[in-house]
C-alpha cells in the first residue's frame, strides 16, 4: 500500500491528529466510554439475535405512519428501486446527503445514466464530486484539496471566487440552496433506525441531511440492514454516541428523527417517504465468523487512530470503506481478492481500544491472515526464514545473489516485460550484496 507523500501526507496527518485531539478532549474517560459501549453493544446484539423479527416491525411501523419500505437483496435491486421512485416523482435532479451505503451501491452512475442530475450536498462530497475523485476520508472527503484547488474548481464551474474557506463555503451554499429548493427528490443515508417506533436518524453538522429530508417532496432513505436497533431509546443512545466517538461532541449540529412523511399533522416536510433496506451480503456476514463488523457505526475512530490509515489515506484501500473497518468489511462485501487488506495493519490494537462498539478489529484481521488460502502469501517469508537459519544455504544464496543483483541492476528497467514486476522495479534500486560478512562467525575464518 503506497504511503502518501508531501502535502497530502501532511494534510492527512494534521486532519487525523485534529480528530484524535477532539476525541481525547470530549470522550476519553474509560469508565464513560465503557458505560456507553456496554449499552450500545447490548442494544445492537439484541437486534442481531433476531434481525428478521425487528426489521419486520420497523417496516410495519414506517408503513403505519404512511411511509413505504423496500427490501433490496443486492445493490442492483436497491438502485432499481431508487431509480424507479425518482422516475415516478419526475425528478430531473436529486439532492443527496453523504451516504457510504449509496457509494457501496454505486447509485450515482445509475441515476446519471438515466439522465438524472445528482448533487452531493455535503460540502466535502460536493467538492470531490466536481473534481471527479473518490472521497479521501469518510469525515473529510475533500481534506486533501487546498483552498486554491477548490477555488479554481468552483471558478471553472460557477463564478470567480476568492481562495478563502468562508468565501468558498458561501458560494457552495448559494449553489446548493437553489438545488435544495428545486429538487423533486432528496436521498440520504441512515445512521441508525429504531424498530419499535419505525424511526430513522439522519445526522449531519452542515444541515444538508435536514435539507434533503425536509424540502424535496419525496425523501428516500437508504440503509444497510445492520443499522437497526430495537427501540427509540436505543436510537437516542446511538445518536449521542456517534458524535462522541467521531468528534468528542455530545451532539452533532443536526439530528433528524424521521418516522414517516409529513402528512396532514406536520405542516412542512416531504409528502412521500421511502425507506430502502439493503442486504448486499450482510445476512451472509451475520452467519460467518466476522459478524461483529455489523456493529460498526462508521464513526471513523478506527481510521483516525490507525498508524496505517494515517500514513496511507482512504483511496489506497481500493473501495468505499477504509481503515481497519474497511480492511475487514471490503473482502466480506466485495470478495476474497481484497484479502490482502488484512495485512494493512500493525495489529497495534488502537482501533479496538477506540471503537465505541468495542469491535475486535485486530482479532478479525489476524483471523483473516491465518485463513487457508492465505498460506501461499507466507511462502516467501518462510523460504527466507529457512535460508537465514542455515549458514551453508545462506552463504550459497549470497554467492548467487551478488552477480544476479548486479546484472539485474545494469538491465534497463524499461526492458522488463510490463506487469507487476516491472512496476515494482520502476521505483526501487536493488541493494548491493556486500562481499564481507556482516557478522563474523565465532572462531571462524573468513573465506
Amino acid at each position, binding site marked *: 500500500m503506497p504511503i502518501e507523500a508531501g502535502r497530502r501526507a501532511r494534510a492527512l496527518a494534521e486532519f487525523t491528529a485534529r480528530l484524535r485531539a477532539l476525541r481525547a478532549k470530549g470522550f476519553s474517560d474509560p469508565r464513560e466510554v465503557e458505560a456507553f459501549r456496554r449499552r450500545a453493544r447490548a442494544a445492537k446484539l439484541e437486534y442481531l439475535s433476531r434481525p428478521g423479527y425487528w426489521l419486520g416491525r420497523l417496516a410495519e411501523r414506517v408503513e403505519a405512519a404512511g411511509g413505504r419500505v423496500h*427490501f433490496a437483496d443486492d445493490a442492483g435491486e436497491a438502485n432499481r428501486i431508487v431509480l424507479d421512485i425518482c422516475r415516478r416523482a419526475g425528478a430531473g435532479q436529486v439532492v443527496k446527503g453523504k451516504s457510504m451505503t449509496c457509494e457501496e451501491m454505486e447509485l450515482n452512475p445509475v441515476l446519471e445514466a438515466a439522465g438524472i442530475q445528482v448533487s452531493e450536498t455535503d460540502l466535502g462530497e460536493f467538492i470531490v464530486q466536481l473534481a471527479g475523485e473518490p472521497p479521501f476520508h469518510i469525515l473529510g472527503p475533500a481534506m486533501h484539496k487546498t483552498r486554491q484547488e477548490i477555488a479554481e474548481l468552483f471558478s471553472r464551474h460557477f463564478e470567480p471566487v476568492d481562495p478563502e474557506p468562508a468565501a468558498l463555503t458561501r458560494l457552495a*451554499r448559494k449553489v446548493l440552496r437553489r438545488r435544495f429548493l428545486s429538487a423533486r427528490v432528496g436521498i440520504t443515508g441512515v445512521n441508525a433506525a429504531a424498530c419499535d417506533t419505525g424511526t430513522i436518524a439522519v445526522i449531519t453538522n452542515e444541515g444538508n441531511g435536514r435539507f434533503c429530508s425536509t424540502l424535496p417532496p419525496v425523501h428516500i432513505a437508504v440503509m444497510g440492514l445492520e443499522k437497526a436497533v430495537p427501540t427509540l431509546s436505543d436510537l437516542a443512545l446511538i445518536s449521542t454516541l456517534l458524535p462522541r466517538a467521531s468528534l468528542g461532541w455530545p451532539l452533532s449540529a443536526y439530528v433528524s428523527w424521521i418516522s414517516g412523511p409529513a402528512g396532514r399533522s406536520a405542516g*412542512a416536510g416531504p409528502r412521500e417517504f421511502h425507506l430502502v433496506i439493503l442486504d448486499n451480503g450482510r445476512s451472509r456476514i451475520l452467519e460467518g465468523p466476522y459478524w461483529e463488523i455489523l456493529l460498526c457505526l462508521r464513526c471513523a475512530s478506527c481510521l483516525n487512530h490507525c498508524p496505517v490509515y494515517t500514513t496511507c489515506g482512504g483511496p489506497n484501500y481500493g473501495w468505499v470503506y477504509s481503515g481497519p473497518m474497511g480492511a475487514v468489511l471490503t473482502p466480506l462485501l466485495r470478495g476474497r481478492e481484497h484479502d490482502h487488506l488484512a495485512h494493512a495493519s500493525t495489529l497495534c490494537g488502537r482501533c479496538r481500544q477506540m471503537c465505541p462498539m468495542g469491535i475486535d478489529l485486530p482479532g478479525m484481521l489476524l483471523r483473516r491472515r491465518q485463513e487457508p488460502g492465505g498460506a501461499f502469501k507466507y511462502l516467501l517469508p518462510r523460504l527466507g526464514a529457512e535460508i537465514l537459519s542455515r549458514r551453508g544455504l545462506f552463504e550459497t544464496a549470497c554467492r548467487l545473489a551478488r552477480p544476479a543483483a548486479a546484472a539485474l541492476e545494469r538491465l534497463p528497467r524499461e526492458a522488463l516485460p510490463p506487469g507487476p514486476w516491472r512496476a515494482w522495479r520502476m521505483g526501487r534500486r536493488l541493494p548491493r550484496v556486500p562481499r564481507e560478512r556482516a557478522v563474523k562467525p565465532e572462531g571462524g575464518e573468513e573465506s
Partner: protein
Amino acid sequence: MSHRESFLARLPVGRVRPPPRPSGPALPPPQDPAGEFLRRLDEGGAAVHRVDGAEAAAARAVEIVRRAGAERAGLAELGPELEGPLRRAAAAAGLELVPAGDGCDPAAVEPLPAGITRAELAVAQTGALVQVARPGGGRLLSLLPPLHVALVCVQDLLPAMEDLAAALVDRSRFPEGPPPAVSLIGGPSKTGDIEAVIVLGVHGPGRLEVVLWG
C-alpha cells in the same frame, strides 16, 4: 412467499447471544440541567441567554434580531404566552414579524433574514433544542434564514436523551405516537471540509441564539 418474507426469513435467528441490558443510563443525570443545557449549546457554537419570564424572553428575541440589522423576522406559532409580548416588543422596536410557521411555501421563508421559533422540548445533557413537526412549527424557520432565534421554556427541558425518547412515545403528550419528524439542534450549521477550517452557516443558519426563560 413474498419478496419481503423471503428477505426476512433468510436472516438467521439466534446467531448472536445478547447480553442482559445494563440498568440505568450511561451517564448520571445532570445536577444543574439549565446550566448544563446552556453550557453545551455554547460549546456547540450557539450564543445563549437566560432570562426571567416570557415577557423578557420576547424582548430579548426582538433585541437579538434588531442588533443583527434585520428589519423583518419570520415567526413560527409560539403560543399565547409568548406571542403577545413578542408583538408588543417588535412594534416598539420597529421589527416586522412575518407569520412563517410550517405550512408556508418554503420559497417565501427562504428570503427572510431571521426566524424566531420555540423549541417544543429540549435536552440538557446534550444541549439539544428539539423541534417537533406540526403545522405552524419551526421546521423551515430553523433551517432556511441565516439567523435562528430559539425560545426555550425551562419547563420543557428534559435531563437526558433517554428522557426525550420516553417523552416521544408518551401517548399523553403525543396521542398518535412519535411525530413524523423530530429535529434536534445542537448548534449552528458548521463544516470543516475546506482545509479543516471551521466555517459556520454552510447550509443552515450560521447564527443560532438560544433564549432560555422560566
